[in-house]
Each structure stands twice: as structure tokens, then as C-alpha cells.
């Protein structure tokens, strides 16, 4: 099979609301090859999460969205699949780490129950004991120190970073072919972040997983990804090998972004520059288009 793991072609997406139509994606094309780790970076509101959710087939069924373009997973067009087929892929062959972990974990179930459900998607016959063992093992891999307590807890009984790590563990446990990670480490400090990245890296090597990696942390993007797309106001404005883009950024937005990274001063502690020109740099507004009813 030579088809890339993920191939997005001219993806366009808009939201229809009573104040008019908001065009959010204006023709996104991107590919993630086998075993490749690809970053998608861009300003807040530029369309990263919407792109990610489309890959998982989560935007297609929403009433207010208008979507066009093709999304091919391992050569098969998601648009040609039935909703039930797409659902079967989710959590097994492709999985996602959501930006907002708490609201993506079902609040009425304990983590242990949710975990077993995830495991049962790829192994329907899995016993409760087996599931618990597997869950315990992956939870320790994301530095959860009391896996038993966590499995017995409801999401609201866990801290922000604990929920985030539960979400990461669930996304990795079925060894997907494609992992979509949307801001996976926002609630984690550098040490734990490092550990989860190493875990993802191992997954890539051992199971030939491909990763679409969304992050505003450019240090991590640089360290973890092979290739980089920069999205700006719903359009891809720059693409290339990560190192090359970091060395000579072409688009003004990429330049502004790289320049704004906290700099290391004095004792090796990153510090922001108080450069006011940066604060008022590009700001996202998707202008409403179309008619108001």
C-alpha cells in the first residue's frame, strides 16, 4: 500500500447560523504519510480543531456545517463510507486526543468503564480483568501514579492534567494507524509532556503510527515533528520539513509566530519580549459572508 495514511484535498467548511454563513476552511490540502509526524500550527481560531474533527468524521454529521472536498484515510474516501463504517474506524484505526479532555470524557461513567469500552472497540471479547490490566499499564506510561484510584474515579474527580493523560492513554491504547493529537499537552508541565511525547514517539516506531499534531508549543513541534503546515485564517500558507521552516520561515505569520516564542535569557529561563508590535499582529476574524435570512 502506497497511499498516504491521511490525504486531505481541498477541504472547505462553513457554518450556517442565523447571522449568516461563516467560512472557516477555504480549501485545506494536507497529507500525512505512513509513520510521518506532521504538525499543524496556526493562530487561535484559524481552523486547526475543525480540520482535526473533520478527519475523524465528526463535522460531517452536524446540521449547521457545509463541507466539501475529500478526506482519504489509507486511500479510502471517508465521504464514501457509511456513518457506521466511519464510527468503527474511530478509536481503533484512527483516534484523537481532544483539545478539551474533560468535556470529551463521558461524565457519568468511571474512567475504568470508559477505558474498557475503548479497549472493547478493537477487542470485543476482552474480559474485565484483562481490560483493567491493560488500562493500568498504559496509565502508568503517561505518569499516572495511582492508576487504581484513577480507574475508580469519575472525570470530575480528577485534575485537569490527569484527565488529559487519561485521554492520551485512551487514544494510544488501541495502537491506531493515525493519531490526531489536538493540543495534547496543554495542562502538563515540561517533564510529563516530555514523557508523553516519548510514548507517542515509541508508538510511531513500533506500530508505524502516523501523527497529525496540533500544538501552539513550537518547541515541541520542532522536536517532535518531521513536517509542518502553517494554517492562517483557514488556508495553508506554508508547508515544509519542520527544520527548514524553522530556519527560514516564508510567510509573515510564521515569522511573527517564531519571533514571539519566549526567549531564553540569563539563567536559561524562557522570557517573553515586551514587543508591542507582536501583540497586535494578525488577529482572526472570519468575516460572515452570504445572506442574512
Amino acid at each position, binding site marked *: 500500500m502506497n497511499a498516504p495514511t491521511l490525504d486531505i484535498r481541498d477541504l472547505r467548511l462553513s457554518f450556517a447560523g442565523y447571522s449568516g454563513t461563516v467560512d472557516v476552511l477555504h480549501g485545506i490540502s494536507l497529507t500525512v504519510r505512513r509513520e510521518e509526524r506532521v504538525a499543524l500550527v496556526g493562530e487561535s481560531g484559524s481552523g486547526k480543531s475543525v480540520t482535526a474533527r473533520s478527519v475523524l468524521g465528526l463535522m460531517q454529521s452536524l446540521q449547521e456545517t457545509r463541507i466539501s472536498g475529500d478526506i482519504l484515510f489509507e486511500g479510502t474516501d471517508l465521504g464514501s463510507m457509511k456513518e457506521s463504517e466511519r464510527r468503527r474506524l474511530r478509536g481503533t484505526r484512527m483516534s484523537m486526543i481532544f483539545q*478539551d479532555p474533560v468535556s470529551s470524557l463521558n461524565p457519568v461513567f468511571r474512567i475504568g468503564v470508559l477505558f474498557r469500552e475503548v479497549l472493547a472497540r478493537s477487542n470485543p471479547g476482552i474480559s474485565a480483568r484483562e481490560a483493567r490490566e491493560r488500562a493500568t499499564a498504559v496509565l502508568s506510561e503517561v505518569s499516572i501514579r495511582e492508576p487504581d484510584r484513577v480507574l*475508580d474515579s469519575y472525570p470530575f474527580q480528577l485534575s485537569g*492534567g490527569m484527565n488529559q493523560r487519561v485521554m492520551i492513554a485512551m487514544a494510544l491504547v488501541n495502537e491506531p494507524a493515525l493519531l490526531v493529537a489536538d493540543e495534547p499537552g496543554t495542562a502538563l508541565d515540561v517533564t510529563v509532556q516530555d514523557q508523553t511525547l516519548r510514548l507517542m514517539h515509541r508508538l510511531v516506531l513500533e506500530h508505524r503510527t502516523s501523527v497529525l499534531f496540533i500544538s501552539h508549543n513550537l518547541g515541541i513541534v520542532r522536536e517532535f515533528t518531521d513536517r509542518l503546515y502553517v494554517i492562517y485564517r483557514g488556508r495553508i500558507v506554508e508547508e515544509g520539513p519542520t527544520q527548514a521552516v524553522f530556519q527560514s520561515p516564508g510567510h509573515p505569520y510564521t515569522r511573527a509566530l517564531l519571533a514571539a516564542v519566549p526567549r531564553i535569557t540569563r539563567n536559561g529561563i524562557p522570557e517573553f519580549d515586551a514587543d508591542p508590535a507582536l*501583540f497586535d499582529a494578525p488577529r482572526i476574524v472570519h468575516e460572515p459572508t452570504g445572506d442574512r435570512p
Partner: protein
Amino acid sequence: MTSIHLALRSVSKSFRVGARSVRAVEGISVEVAEGECLAIVGESGSGKSTLANLVLGVYAPDAGSIMLDGATLPARRSLANRRMVQLVQQNPLSSLNPKRTVGASIRLSLDVHGIGKPSSRASRIGWLLEEVGLPAEFAERSPAALSGGQRQRVAIARALACESRLVVLDEPTSSLDVIVQARILRLLKDLRAARGLTYVFITHDLAVVRNVADRVMVLKEGARVEIGETARIFTCPEHAYTRGLIAASPVIAQEEQDLRDRLRQGIG
């Protein structure tokens, strides 16, 4: 001498999970001066958000007391008590009512606390949204129609709307790109200077700590392991956790620094 705005005296809080007891906060004492910014750092699960919720009165402490302006707060807070402190929650989606538009959420805070003239509230909402880098038209949107970073900024705007003198910020900029983050930090600094606000700022990002905090408190397993002036914490951290954090921060090569400097000059 500046006066003490917020004081915690041996505050503890445990939770029950099934047959287990989880000690989230254990005997924490700290004083925050009027107009000060205290950063709280500590590993995931060390009790930072629990502490924030205790200050807000979401939970009552099992032991110890919490004082604002020298007066002990009751377990059940009055409306006047609640107006004294605002929280920006760690998870902005669950803190915003999904059924209300963003404008209505902010408006409700203004109404409840009787801030400004009713006739001026709409323009105030627009102004607040623009201050956090969002167009005023976003007031008409529901939280679900916003990106992660946009929601986080709405939560900040709503907390600032109430003009409480004490604001607790729980990872307020964690999902913002560096440009927006710098803008928000500047806004917080400006407001603090203009209104003399006191901040309790929870973050795992050392660059943010360095940028905003006067002092830093380090938590581990619910207890305070270190507290001191920001500069001191960075130059001679006492606790292993603090040292580990600083050691794990990325180091940038000189040539990259040079490139940044060139880029910056090009932008200005």
C-alpha cells in the same frame, strides 16, 4: 506597608473516592498582599485547582480558614463575598453555560453584581471582548461555536468584567498561541496596574511565571514545599521539583536566538 489581601491559614481538603480518601490540599498557609501576583506551580494533581476552588468557596475547607481583607470568609458565601473574587477556570468549556451566548454569560455577571449602568453594559461587553482579542460580534455566539483558545479568552473577559479586586487564574493561557498569550499577559498587567488587582496565577509555564509573578509558591502532593520571590526561585530553587522544572525547560541555541532577533527587527 501594604495590607494582606488574601490569607490562608492551615487550609486542608480531602475528597472521598469510593473507599479511598484523597488528600488534595494539606495544611497550606500563605498570605498574598494587596496588588501582588502570586504564581502557584506544582506537578499535575498537586492540589492547585482545589486550592483555587477553596478560595472561591466552591468547596469549604475541612480545616483551616480563608481570610479576605482580614475577615474570615464563611463556608457559605454571600453575594457580596462572591463579588470579592473571580475565577478563570482551567476548563473553559465546562465553565461557560452552553445554552447562553457569550454576551449573555458576561452580561449575567454584570447584572448579578450590578456593574455599570444597564444601558452601558452592551458596549462594555464589546470592549471586554476586544481587549482579549476577539471581535465584539462574538457576543452573539454560543460557546460551542468558538475555538478552544477563543473560549479561554471569553472566560478571562468574563472574570475581568466583574471588577473584583482578587482574580484567581487557573492555567488561563494554556491553549493560546504565543502571540495571543503575550497580548493577554499584557492586558492582565495593565489592569493590575490600573485597578490595583491582586492575582493568584496557576500555571505550569515557567515563561509565564517569570513574566507575571512577584512570588512563586510550589506545591507537591497538596503541601507547600517552597515559596519565594520569583527571581530567587529561578536562580536558586530549593526543592527538587522546582529544579527539575527549570532543568527541563528548553534551551535555545545561539544561532536560533540570532534568527529570532532578526525576525523581530523585521516585524517592528
